[in-house]
């Protein structure tokens, strides 16, 4: 309940064109007791990450010890260290001006990130001590600006052409080919922009399978991209499941962007998979789906195999992705008791395995 109040009262930081505005007619069910997301408020992507602040610390250090020093920082409490590449040409220009500088005295900056409760000064001094530095290097600490990296991440998202006349287009761009099947997305921080090989593989699989009128299940829906694509290809209905509430939020928003009516797409928040309660409380009918795709990771697709297959009708097609080609043999072995006519598509190191559910 307190989570609900938190969302309701949080001042909306406006990400300008990146606002997640969710229309009130959509809703989703949660199989865990809801800290229910009331979706009539305007939400912004960064809202959920206000609870994840960090410290951005810039540390000056002599160039010749940057490697041991950054390793030491990681040992003593830094979450990450980044060093800009030493630009030889720039340094040569500077030498003319400051002819006194020698290699050892050249300083570079380490950009590091610390957890917000960490004692930065102590960490830096312990790290310096451990490599025999006589003085504590100069540093300054700022509260991390999450708006900055979230925005930069969103800006990377460009329209992607998956196949002829099938495009994935960010919410803030107009479709390059207006007559194509365009799936409009604001992925937020959920997986599925169309750029990743596994998303492409699953989209192509879906395009080949959906003839019209199918019931589709997207297990691990992320941004909802597959569930929405299925409907655009002509499926009768889509269902999406994910363990991440942010994914459900993102999928909701993307469904609205693509004018998907409520009755065509239902979304469910599943409890995180552990060995015992493998999402047994998801309120979806068994053996009702014509196509089921799970684009997740090796461990969940292995653990949840029986569960994922249980939703498919006999004779339905099941697609499994998010796995590397080296992991394929394990997955094939796990799923072959249930599937026949197994085929595999590959892009780079990633594969998508599909087969039909055995009838008996």
């Amino acid at each position, binding site marked *: 309940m307190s989570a609900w109040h938190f969302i309701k009262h949080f001042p909306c930081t406006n990400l300008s064109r990146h606002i997640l505005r969710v229309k009130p007619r959509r809703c989703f069910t949660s199989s865990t007791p809801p800290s229910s997301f009331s979706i009539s408020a305007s939400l912004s992507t960064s809202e959920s*990450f206000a609870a*994840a*602040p*960090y410290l*951005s610390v810039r540390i000056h250090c002599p160039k010749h010890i940057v490697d041991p020093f*950054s*390793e030491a920082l*990681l040992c003593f409490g830094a*979450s*990450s*260290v*980044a*060093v*800009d*590449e030493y630009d030889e040409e720039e340094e040569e220009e500077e030498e003319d001006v400051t002819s006194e500088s020698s290699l050892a005295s050249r300083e570079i900056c380490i*950009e590091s*990130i610390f*957890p917000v409760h960490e004692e930065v000064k102590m960490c830096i001094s312990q790290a310096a001590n451990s490599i025999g530095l006589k003085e504590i290097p100069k540093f300054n600490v700022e509260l*991390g600006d*999450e708006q*900055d*990296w*979230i925005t*930069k*991440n969103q*800006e*990377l998202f460009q329209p992607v052409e998956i196949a002829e006349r099938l495009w994935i287009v960010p919410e803030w761009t107009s479709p390059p080919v207006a007559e194509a099947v365009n799936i409009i997305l604001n*992925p937020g*921080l959920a*997986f599925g*922009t169309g*750029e*990743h090989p*596994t998303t492409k593989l699953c989209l192509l699989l879906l395009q080949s399978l959906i003839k019209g009128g199918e019931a589709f299940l997207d297990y691990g829906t992320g941004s909802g991209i597959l569930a929405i694509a299925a409907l655009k290809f002509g499926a009768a209905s889509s269902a999406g499941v994910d363990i991440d509430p942010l994914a459900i939020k993102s999928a909701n928003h993307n469904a609205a962007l693509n004018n998907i009516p409520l009755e065509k797409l239902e979304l469910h928040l599943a409890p995180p998979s552990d060995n015992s309660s493998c999402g047994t409380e998801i309120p979806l009918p068994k053996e009702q789906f014509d196509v089921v795709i799970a684009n997740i*990771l*090796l*461990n969940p697709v292995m653990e949840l195999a029986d569960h994922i297959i249980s939703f498919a009708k006999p004779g339905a097609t099941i697609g499994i992705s*998010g*796995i*590397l080609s080296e*992991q394929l043999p394990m997955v094939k072995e796990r799923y072959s008791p249930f599937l026949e006519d197994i085929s595999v598509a590959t892009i*780079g*190191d990633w594969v998508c395995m599909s087969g039909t559910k055995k009838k008996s």
Partner: protein
Amino acid sequence: MAAAAKDIATRRAVAATIKLTVPAGGARPAPPVGPALGQYRLNLMAFCKDFNARTQKYKPETPMAVKITAYKDNSFEFTVKSPSVSWYVKKAAGVEKGSTRPGHLTVTTLSVRHVYEIAKVKQSDPFCGYMPLESICKSIVGTANSMGIKIVQDLE
């Protein structure tokens, strides 16, 4: 986008080197991964998916040491190493720190079986792959001893 080493036909310009610790299978677009990679405009989701897929074989939440080379065209490559031997030794022994006087004061003991299990994990590290298991075991015993942790045949 993540690219395999074999795709480099020409030497790409490196923008930065980023090092961080990420729990196996647990990369998320949140601090520290988010800001560390976001600053250099690297594709966060691609990294998370890639890293999580490649660390499926490790026990979840094991802190993996990641080194990312970010190129000026926003592409990147990364290598993943399992935690240091001293981390594994401390974990196996159930201690927070090694001995304050290694060689004189023994904090606790581990069995040769522990050493073997740790060696098996380290063998799948890049840069470690060609070392014979026996050499890795010897190095682990050395590290344990230097922390004041004795190796015994069997824990009784």
